[in-house]
């Protein structure tokens, strides 16, 4: 398949209902951190963009939301696909991005490189959409905060070794901070800045 047709295909079969279903999964995930939802069953973004990851782009990105792509994703096909289906501007400076997409296995760049919002407008912060090998099977973190009854355990696979320290740093300037959506294939789990993460037994 040529580069061009690949960028044109793979949008939602039904853009209106596909976006609604994906948003609902995303909203429920954001409202209940630590729970896993399925999204984007009828989207087919070009590899290495994940299915749920692509669906999130189709659902939320448009010409109002600059998008930053990680090095593995910053190829002509992915850029073309996001550009064609969402109309979003692809920016090279992560600080200007409203959404950032990272492929599986890539190092997660320093959170400080992304917009964390301002004291007056903490909502003007970036949302990171990070593809992982799997949403389970990794080290156990205990999550607490809004949306979680008492506490819940999450076992994301493929997060960096210093993730807890970096997440704590992201929360240190609360209510400023980033929000993360982790995806693996067609599954997603949200980690809003309001969620506290600790090592199991820590």
């Amino acid at each position, binding site marked *: 398949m040529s580069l061009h047709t690949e960028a044109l295909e793979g949008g939602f079969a039904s853009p209106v209902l596909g976006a609604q279903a994906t948003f609902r999964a995303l909203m429920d995930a954001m409202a209940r951190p630590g729970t896993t939802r399925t999204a984007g069953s009828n989207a087919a973004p070009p590899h290495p963009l994940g299915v749920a990851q692509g669906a999130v782009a189709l659902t939320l990105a448009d010409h109002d939301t600059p998008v930053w792509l990680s090095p593995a994703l910053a190829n002509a096909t992915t850029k073309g696909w996001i550009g064609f289906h969402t109309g979003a501007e692809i920016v090279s400076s992560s600080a200007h991005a409203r959404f950032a997409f990272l492929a599986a296995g890539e190092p997660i760049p320093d959170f400080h490189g992304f917009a964390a919002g301002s004291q007056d407008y903490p*909502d003007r912060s970036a949302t990171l959409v990070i593809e992982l090998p799997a949403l389970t099977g990794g080290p156990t973190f205990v999550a607490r905060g809004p949306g979680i009854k008492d506490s819940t355990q999450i076992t994301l696979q493929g997060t960096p070794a210093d993730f807890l320290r970096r997440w704590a740093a992201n929360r240190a300037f609360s*209510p400023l901070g980033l929000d993360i959506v982790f995806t693996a294939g067609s599954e997603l789990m949200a980690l809003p*800045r309001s969620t506290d993460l600790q090592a199991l037994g820590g």
Partner: protein
Amino acid sequence: MSTPETDLATYNFAYLDEQTKRMIRRAILKAIAIPGYQVPFASREMPMPYGWGTGGVQVTAAVIGPDDTLKVIDQGADDTTNAVSIRAFFQKVANVAVTTKTREATVIQTRHRIPEEKLTEGQVLVYQVPIPEPLRFLEPRETETRKMHALEEYGLMHVKLYEDIARNGHIATTYAYPVKVEGRYVMDPSPIPKFDNPKMHMSEALQLFGAGREKRIYAIPPHTKVVSLDFEDHPFEVQKFAKPCALCGAHGVYLDEVILDDKGGRMFVCSDTDFCEERREAGHVGELGVANKEAAE
């Protein structure tokens, strides 16, 4: 006979165009991530006037899908003008199932009440909000109130509640009673009676607030601390009613006063019509109620 070519143009699903929905959806997600914080959004004109719940309608339109069942209440009632027209609106533009039963609904849009029945996981409660800024009547400038929220400077609100006590001997605020969400943002719960405030605390349902004219969206995720502001020596209290509902005999629910004649006759009945009807169907009768036929037989 009509074919797709000759059909008149129809509304997009749920009325709003997709770009507007994306903008509202992004605001909702950030609102959930920052509980109690008011996210600005580019509110649209809706086919109903401001003050009729355009904020709630826009939030509902961005959230609702073909599988949802919608319930709309206005001051607890399913059958008043605002509730009927908004319910009919979504039936027309989204073709969704509607209900008056609280437990059957997946999305509940409300004006100024929280249903008596406990909400469950999987339900979304959408509030219509007239004035989202709890500090607005104390400080008219948006630039100032925004700074006060940023600095967590809420002393003015406590002064207001204190002045209530100094003048009236108790906190006289009975609706839109300010709350603090997750120990951070002071939030206006919309003009619900303070009777409903405790229901917001650790609710299992997601709560979304939309203010159309004021262009703000905010949220309370499930299982989130929502504390009504008070003082140690004047703790927060909800309204108490001397008598139960005159129709269904329910205790511990919010009651509306109904004038019966011009000689001072009145009765107090459940504000939540679905709750009251269900109780009467189950055979409960208040002092002015008529016994359910089947139950009486």
